[in-house]
């Protein structure tokens, strides 16, 4: 491809969406200044949201959204069969996302409430890795295009694609923010994986953990922190449950 020193191949790319707001796919069309370069790294085989082309010979599939219907499971299995690399794209795909909030109620109750009991199919929300093997995850609600660019470049050039292992606080301090705990709020920054440039805390709203837990977090110490500052347990639970990303860390 374009680099004169090394030879690279374009990624045979496809993008699919399941139960979600499609905000993550939309990010692919952002950062307009480098959009042409970005798409020249990709050989787009299927991308319904922006193109009418449909081909099934892709290698890398970005899968957005969570799974909440049986036809989605079928489609996902077919994608897994074709894709050499399946990327869980966005928080819904990686963790279930806000959609999982519905799981607190029985499905029938949801349907009764919204559809007057019309026979609408809906399953409890699941993340992609509950159903198929995921090769790489790009969390974020929505994903950060800058990070996506970097990961795509790395996939093309065969470099290491990794997410930061440390928590959001590092990036929050880089932005010189006043810590939200000091402002009297619970923030999930200390236990959430960085990579978003601490965009929420920079906007002075608490991190809700859309990028999931960082590596080797000290959850008991975090609970103690909330306790010691006299902050509300209910608020903590609401935040931990918001994206379903802290499933593995139940809050007593």
């Amino acid at each position, binding site marked *: 491809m374009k680099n004169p020193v090394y030879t690279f191949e374009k990624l045979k790319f496809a993008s699919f*969406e*399941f*139960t*979600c*707001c*499609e*905000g*993550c*796919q*939309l*990010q692919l*069309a*952002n950062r*307009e*200044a480098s*959009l*042409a370069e970005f*798409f020249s790294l990709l050989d*787009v085989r299927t*991308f*319904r*949201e*922006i*193109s*009418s*082309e*449909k081909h099934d010979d892709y290698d890398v599939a970005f899968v957005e959204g969570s799974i*909440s*219907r049986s036809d*989605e499971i079928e489609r996902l299995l077919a994608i897994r069969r074709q894709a050499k690399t399946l990327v869980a794209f966005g928080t819904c795909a990686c963790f279930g*996302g*806000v*959609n999982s*909030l*519905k799981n607190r*109620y029985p499905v029938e*109750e*949801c349907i009764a*409430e*919204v*559809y*007057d009991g*019309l026979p*609408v199919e*809906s399953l409890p929300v699941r993340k992609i890795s509950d159903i198929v093997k995921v090769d790489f995850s790009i969390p974020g*609600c*929505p994903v950060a295009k800058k990070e996506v660019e970097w990961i795509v470049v790395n996939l093309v050039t065969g470099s290491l694609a990794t997410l930061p292992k440390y928590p959001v606080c590092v990036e929050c301090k880089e932005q010189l923010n006043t810590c939200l705990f000091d402002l009297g709020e619970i923030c999930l920054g200390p236990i959430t994986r960085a990579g978003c440039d601490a*965009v*929420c805390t*920079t*906007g*002075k*709203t608490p991190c*809700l953990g859309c990028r999931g837990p960082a590596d080797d977090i000290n959850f008991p110490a975090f609970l103690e922190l909330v306790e010691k500052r006299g902050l509300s347990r209910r*608020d903590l639970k*609401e*935040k931990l449950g*918001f994206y379903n990303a802290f499933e593995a860390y139940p809050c007593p």
Partner: protein
Amino acid sequence: MKRDCSIDIRHLTRVEGHGNIRITVSGGKLLEASWAVVETPRFFEVMVKGMSAERVPFLTSRICGICSISHALASIRALERAMLIAPPPAAETTRLLAMHGETLQSHALHLFFLAAPDFAGTSGVLPLLESQPELVRAGLRLKELGNEISTVTTGRCTHPVSLVVGGLSKAPDKIRLQQLLDMIGERKSALGTACNFFGTLDIPRFERETEFISLHNGATYPFIGGDLLSTDGVRKEENDYLPMTNEYVTEFSTSKFTRCSRESSAAGALARFNNNSGFLHPEAKKAAQKLGLRPICHNPFMCNIAQLVECVHILHDAETLIQKLLDTDLTDIRTPFAPKAGTATGAVEAPRGILYHHMETDEEGKVVKADCIIPTTQNNANIHNDLQALARQALEEGKNDREIEKLAEMLVRSYDPCISCSVH
């Protein structure tokens, strides 16, 4: 001439979300022309139950990846009205500016990425980038500007971070506001390029008399709050949204349908224009005239043009708003509040039309009941009816299958449907 025709489009491309078009003609007779939304429901009205008011806008913004600011603001407005909170004026100005950013971004995305390929005869924007680079670049520059306005005002272009109940959690940075002002000045030319392109297009000739519903405040071109007005003369107060919508479920679609005075109604840029064209910025009025858009326009394909006219309005109005923000000291941006029980509706003009969030809170400020009615929901029935009329007209004109299919697709796209949003 007797003929058969069967069009079955599953998962229409270049729209947000999953929808199907089906047209069946047998022996020259139209048997079926339908628009069905097959998106998976997410049950947001259930999700928000029990959630604290301050968290709600962060949740509801996730209804839609394109118009997340509108959703956040509709919720915020509903909750503020329910709990009797008055946000400071600087916050109101910033919110309106944020809406402008979103609308510009959304319209640019629709016009250049989703609609323009139809007129230019390409499968998507990527080939268009090769055949008409100037045009696509103009679109990108406008979209980037929209995103930048949203980012400066809300912290991020999708899923805003600093729009909160009571005002703003953080004021926009003045240095960046100043940069925005320069950016707008420099990008007006892109708007010219766009107007030239869309002005020369052959917009399909098709009309069906429609009831258009939008916000109307009698003073400005409406974006946040106001009365509800229909071209058939119905006018209601914001909280009285139910008679405007009369939401009902159908069996072939997971999105609901609505109606007001007739069997269906339309919302969106064209509805806003038809009800409020007098309040447009003079430059936008000029553009409308040049592009041949006059109220009340009943051609749904002209929605594209109405969007472009709105872009002109937004660019000029944004300049005024930014100047206003630069002239205030931006310290009073958030009204503290105590949770309260209450009920209210927040209506905003999302890019695709009027959006209602109706919220009921308890004494702790937790949501006990919510109702969200999305613009695309309000348009579904109209799209459905338009499709039938269009198919009939096309048959009469002797169009072939391929032509009918393309027209049908273009018709649906012209509504810029936000399908995943309508099934929320």
